[in-house]
């Protein structure tokens, strides 16, 4: 059984060398950010993840959250860990300084989140949802609402949830039926919400639910949905907790994974209606929700990276200890650990290479987001906003899909031992499986990518990214050692470019044909963007080795990993490109009756 060890070296490489911490540190409001601070924060977060969260991951999975008499009982140890978590101030990492947060940029928050998720994804969904509420209220709440809720939410004394889904309203939120009836300075909420992550528990003193509902006479569809604050306990004028609100957890879902995270069915207004407070204006709820959804989608992409890392570490330890067979071609001699077998090595390399590529792209996106939010120049802010808008569905869709594949490979490394739960390899696959679904399925991400992010602007940002990749090509050309990486990246770029041109041309005339291969396009973009970051990493590693600077072992391994990615992963781009351009007909040729 492996224990989590935060990959600090690769994280620090990605933050400081690949993504450019210095540039982010120079942005307004990042005055306190420095390499030394990042090292200190990462070191302490790693310690907390390894010593507090990781030991509860397996026990939490086995025990799961339970419901008894309307109360959610969290797995043993979670309560104490949550207290330690908030006492250590981790909940306020990227919170606003005016409400007690540390205001650290995403480039620092992202690796910390990766550690929480690798160590115990079910646990850290709770603070993740809280940060979503924080963000939504910070942007759209009234000063009074902010004063009432943000300090306690930032501290983690109160937790937050997002209430979107109803039985008939999943990906299609226009079908939301929960009602909100005005009554004085508040509304009465009636309805049922499902899939509410950490919807009920006692780890925090209060839970602030953000709920989508319709007011009387609201327009049909998505333009008639409003957003409400519904606290579990109403908050008195002096900030103390008052009456229990009319919201109850009526059941918990039985899920494939994230067993320790209570996924609740919440009943609002079984009595006289739950008291809710409108956020912003009526009928603009979905728009408000989306301000934080994009951020949450990046966060889910990060979960993919985190689970891939954890699955890799688990498989690696097994491969280094499990003795089975002799080296290939040897008829006598000692039996060896399975890491000596070429196919096991190939699997481990594919796990390692994909995880590092995903990490590089996710951190790159975090730095883009920081620039989009903080850059002093408006033009630059807008440019980076367009870039992060494009990257968000790619990071979410691609990193989570790959994490499922990496976790599956992790089980394969274990052989039959991976199929039994005792080795712990299966949990990472079960936990990863939700990441391609919630916060918008991969299909939803891909539709968002081809529609709003590519076709509507005639591929302008996508082509800017391809141009940035081409700039790396010029650098790669200077190093004969990197020729294989260069050739593979060139082929990948060509595939993305052709597919993008096809999409831009096809979408306005035949959106259905474009959507038929939206997911292959998303994967294509992800794989090539990952290859782009790996090529950049290889360039840095090569120059550090030539200058004899830093940790030579690390840079040599980075070169090998980038080469593996170029030889084994990146060539998939050409096949995906073919599918995007040619594959729509056969997707749609059979009508529903023909199935």
């Amino acid at each position: 059984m492996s224990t989590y060890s935060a990959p600090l070296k690769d994280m620090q490489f990605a933050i400081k060398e690949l993504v450019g911490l210095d540039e982010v540190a120079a942005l307004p409001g990042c005055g306190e950010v420095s390499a030394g601070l990042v090292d200190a924060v990462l070191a302490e977060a790693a310690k907390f993840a390894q010593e507090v969260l990781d030991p509860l991951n397996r026990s939490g999975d086995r025990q799961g959250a339970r419901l008894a008499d309307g109360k959610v009982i969290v797995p043993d140890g979670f309560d104490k860990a949550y207290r330690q978590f908030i006492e250590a101030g981790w909940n306020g990492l990227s919170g606003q300084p005016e409400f007690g947060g540390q205001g650290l940029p995403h480039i620092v928050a992202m690796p910390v989140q990766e550690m929480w998720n690798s160590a115990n994804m079910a646990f850290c969904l709770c603070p993740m949802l809280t940060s979503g509420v924080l963000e939504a209220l910070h942007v759209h709440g009234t000063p009074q609402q902010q004063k009432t809720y943000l300090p306690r939410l930032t501290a983690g004394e109160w937790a937050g949830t997002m209430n979107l889904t109803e039985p008939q309203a999943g990906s299609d939120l226009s079908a939301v039926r929960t009602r909100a009836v005005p009554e004085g300075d508040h509304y009465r909420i009636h309805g049922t919400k499902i899939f509410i992550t950490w919807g009920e528990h006692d780890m925090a003193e209060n839970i602030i639910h953000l709920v989508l509902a319709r007011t009387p006479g609201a327009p049909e569809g998505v333009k008639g949905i409003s957003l409400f604050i519904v606290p579990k306990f109403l908050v008195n004028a002096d900030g103390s907790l008052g009456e229990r609100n009319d919201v109850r957890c009526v059941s918990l879902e039985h899920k494939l994974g994230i067993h320790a995270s209570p996924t609740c069915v919440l009943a609002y207004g079984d009595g006289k209606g739950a008291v809710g407070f409108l956020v912003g204006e009526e009928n603009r709820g979905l728009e408000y929700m989306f301000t934080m959804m994009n951020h949450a989608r990046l966060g889910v992409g990060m979960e993919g990276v985190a689970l891939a890392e954890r699955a890799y570490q688990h498989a690696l330890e097994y491969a280094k200890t499990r003795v089975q067979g002799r080296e290939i071609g040897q008829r006598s001699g000692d039996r060896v650990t399975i890491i000596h077998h070429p196919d096991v090595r190939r699997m481990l390399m594919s796990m390692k290479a994909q995880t590092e590529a995903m990490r590089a792209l996710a951190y790159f996106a975090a730095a883009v987001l920081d620039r989009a939010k903080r850059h002093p120049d408006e033009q630059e802010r807008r440019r980076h906003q367009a870039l992060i808008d494009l990257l968000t569905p790619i990071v979410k869709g691609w990193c989570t899909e790959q994490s499922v594949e990496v976790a599956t490979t992790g089980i394969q490394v274990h052989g039959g031992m991976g199929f039994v739960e005792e080795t712990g390899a299966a949990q990472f696959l079960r936990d990863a499986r939700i990441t391609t679904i919630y916060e918008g399925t991969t299909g939803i991400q891909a539709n968002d990518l081809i529609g709003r992010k590519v076709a509507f602007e005639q591929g302008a940002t996508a082509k800017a990214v391809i141009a940035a990749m081409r700039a790396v090509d010029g650098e790669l050309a200077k190093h004969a050692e990197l020729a294989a990486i260069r050739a593979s990246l060139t082929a990948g770029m060509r595939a993305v470019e052709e597919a993008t041109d096809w999409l831009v041309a096809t979408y306005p005339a035949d959106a259905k044909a474009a959507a038929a291969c939206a997911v292959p396009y998303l994967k294509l973009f992800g794989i090539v963007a990952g290859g782009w970051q790996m090529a950049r990493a290889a360039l840095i590693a090569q120059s550090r080795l030539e200058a004899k600077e830093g940790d030579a072992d690390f840079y040599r391994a980075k070169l090998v990993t980038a080469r593996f990615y170029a030889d084994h992963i990146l060539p998939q781009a050409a096949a995906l490109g073919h599918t995007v351009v040619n594959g729509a007909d056969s997707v749609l040729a059979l009508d529903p009756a023909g199935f």
Partner: protein
Amino acid sequence: MKVLVTVKRVIDPYVKVRVKSDGSGVETANVKMTMNPFCEIAVEQAVRMKEAGVASEIVAVSIGVQQCQETLRTAMAMGADRGILVETAGEVQPLAVAKVLKAIVDKEQPKLVIMGKQAIDDDSNQSGQMLAALLGWPQAAFISSITVNGETADVTREIDGGLEKLTVRLPAVVTADLRLNEPRYVTLPNIMKAKKKPLEVMKPDALGVDIAPRLTILKVQEPPKRGAGVKVADVKELVAKLRNEAKVI
């Protein structure tokens, strides 16, 4: 009461230590480093004393390379008020450590010095005792509890075969054992605050201390690999093997 705590930067206990290929020592380049766990316990004790109103100021001292500043920042994030780094390029042996610390103690005049009982890298377990001797102060090594009562401190020492309770006159040097306390997790706000606390860097020369090594390391090597065990048939065979093969009885 001013308390001085010492912190040493060592290889992280979770890292597998490798011997340098030339046998001159262990590999520390590009290896994860951290605060010596016993020093962490010493800092924690000082912070608890400050929280209890017993200590008024905590000064953390480290001796070593420039990166020891990170270790001092950790001590300050735990609650130390300021840091002093005596910067050296190479190895500093226990006697030199004790001499440097004596110079610092002369300057700072703390009423109590709390150190880790030993560092997990070389396990010397000497600096605290040597410092007390150089200062001519009372010492209590391996303590698992301490209560300060005005001009004295009651301590419990973990010794072979049990616990020893002593009262030492202050000022004194004490060294922390594992059970003294369980160090806290550093909080994020305190990491941020620690960046702003004063950290003074000085050279041993400025203190008038000669840190030249007095001991020579001949060779560092990996411990021999343990051989496979054997099953013995009975007690008689076991005793025979212990006597004739292992030669331990």
